[in-house]
């Protein structure tokens, strides 16, 4: 009997969504997604309450929200330590290094042929594994996390950027040559703009990678703050609402980070077919 309200809410949300999805406008699409998310959270809350699931296994959304509100300052210090100092610094350094390396490689076909397959291979490896080594080298503070992030984001961005710099077609390059454009001008005016869609593809992929690298590296040693540190110690004290509050912060930060890069992409590559609607 106790399962009836759960099924009721599920069927209700489902029916509303089926009805809404027929309109297929921008507003209805957003609404459908929001209703789906709200239904899931409502179901979660109901299941936890009705079946009296212990907090240790799965806290209810309301408990997570309460913990989020109560631990604001802790969450903020962790956010600054892990996301702003570790992930963002590392991502910026890694992206900068990858772009410069890609331009350097671009001048030499020999390097292109030699480095690209290796770059592709390295990009597919479990690079998170280098975290213990870099923590050993750079110490426990955020610098070692940034170093892990640099290595993790370097190869995906490099591979995309090199592919992007080759993305111009022969006609365009010939045109630049017929105007007697020097290498610098054709790089600046033609190849770099043409590489932007590829570059942003790499940048978007690596936003989550950066967060993951910074947080996972903290499991190998960290000062007494940071999201990875908090998650592992809170799990040890079975303070699951706090852990979930950290997860909410990570999810929000990840979405925001991705959204910012995507918005920047829209500004920079407004001319690309994928941006048309």
């Amino acid at each position, binding site marked *: 009997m106790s399962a009836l309200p759960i099924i009721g809410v599920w069927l209700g949300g489902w029916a509303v969504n089926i009805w*809404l999805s027929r309109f297929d406008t921008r507003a209805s699409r957003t609404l*459908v997604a929001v209703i789906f998310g709200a239904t899931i959270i409502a179901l979660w809350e109901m299941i936890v309450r009705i079946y009296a699931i212990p907090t240790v296994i799965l806290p209810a959304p309301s408990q997570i929200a309460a913990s989020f509100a109560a631990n604001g300052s802790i969450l903020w210090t962790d956010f600054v330590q892990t996301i702003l100092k570790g992930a963002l610094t590392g991502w910026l350094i890694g992206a900068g290094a990858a772009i410069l390396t890609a331009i350097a490689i671009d001048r030499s076909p020999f390097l292109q042929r*030699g480095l690209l397959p290796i770059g592709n291979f390295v990009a*597919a490896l479990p690079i998170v594994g280098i975290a213990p080594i870099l923590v050993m080298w750079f110490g426990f503070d955020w610098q070692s996390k940034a170093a892990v992030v640099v290595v993790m984001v370097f190869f995906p961005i490099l591979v995309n950027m090199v592919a992007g710099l080759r993305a111009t077609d022969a006609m365009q390059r010939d045109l630049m040559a017929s105007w007697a454009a020097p290498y610098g001008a054709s790089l600046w005016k033609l190849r770099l703009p043409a590489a932007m869609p590829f570059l942003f593809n790499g940048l978007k992929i690596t936003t989550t990678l950066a967060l993951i690298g910074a947080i996972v590296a903290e499991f190998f040693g960290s000062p007494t703050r940071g999201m990875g540190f908090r998650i*592992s110690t809170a799990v040890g004290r079975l303070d699951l609402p706090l852990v979930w509050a950290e997860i909410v912060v990570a*999810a929000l930060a990840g979405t925001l980070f991705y959204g910012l890069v995507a918005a920047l992409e829209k500004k920079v590559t407004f001319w690309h077919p994928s941006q048309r609607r």
Partner: protein
Amino acid sequence: MRRADLVPILTVLLVIVAVWYLGAIRMNATWERDQAARAGTEVTWSQLIPLTLTQDRPVLPAPHQVAVGLWEGVAGQAITSRRSLVWHAWVTLSATLAGFAIGTAAGILLAVGIVHSRSMDQSVMPWAVASQTVPILAIAPMVIVVMASAGVTGLLPKAIIAAWLSFFPVLVGMVKGLRTPDAMQMDLMRSWSAGRPQVLARLRLPSSLPYLFASLKVAIAAALVGTIVAELPSGATAGLGARLLSGSYYGQTVQIWSALFMAAILAGLLVALIGLIERRVLARMGLAA
């Protein structure tokens, strides 16, 4: 890989190894100098170089030390020994494959649902995308600990992390693949009065295969990463991730690097295996390039 690329690739690899050796000498020299200063002696360069390349716990082990560590871990132990890298790799591999299978199945089923139901497309897809901005790897240890407290241990918790990471690439690739048949092909199916299941089985699924295989390569590498990170929380004593962690606790750098290389080799083999199956299947279907 073309034969013409072989020379450039080998050159780059050679340069990497050379830089690695130089780095090992440089980074390990500090410790040797400290030791010499403490003993009140001087070390010359000709003494220093062989010393830096044979340390027990180097800051950066030399390539040949890693190679020896790898070889001893693979060939020097009985496969059933807990010191054998093959055994640890097998622990990781089994969870990876289980998670990969779950994730792939979930991704394909969700994709079929999304392609056939507009309400499912609009509800699930945005959240599937959002689920990927959650750094799931970061919460992997929590999932493991919580499941252990609920009495679930062993392969399953790790497989769930691996599945979570591998479902998304499969989902995205499959949705794209299932939607590739163009209007002309769909009309042809309709003129044969084919039902939805038939369109799915005869047209959509076959034309989605190239996309599926491209996704599978990404997904299996992701599943391996997920399993390794899932092995990090204390308590796990088996698997390549646990090897990394214990190596980091005891300062056994050679052990860390050997586990790392083992993981890299495993990833390379898995991706190559998928590539092989892909070529076979696509050639059978007459789609091979």
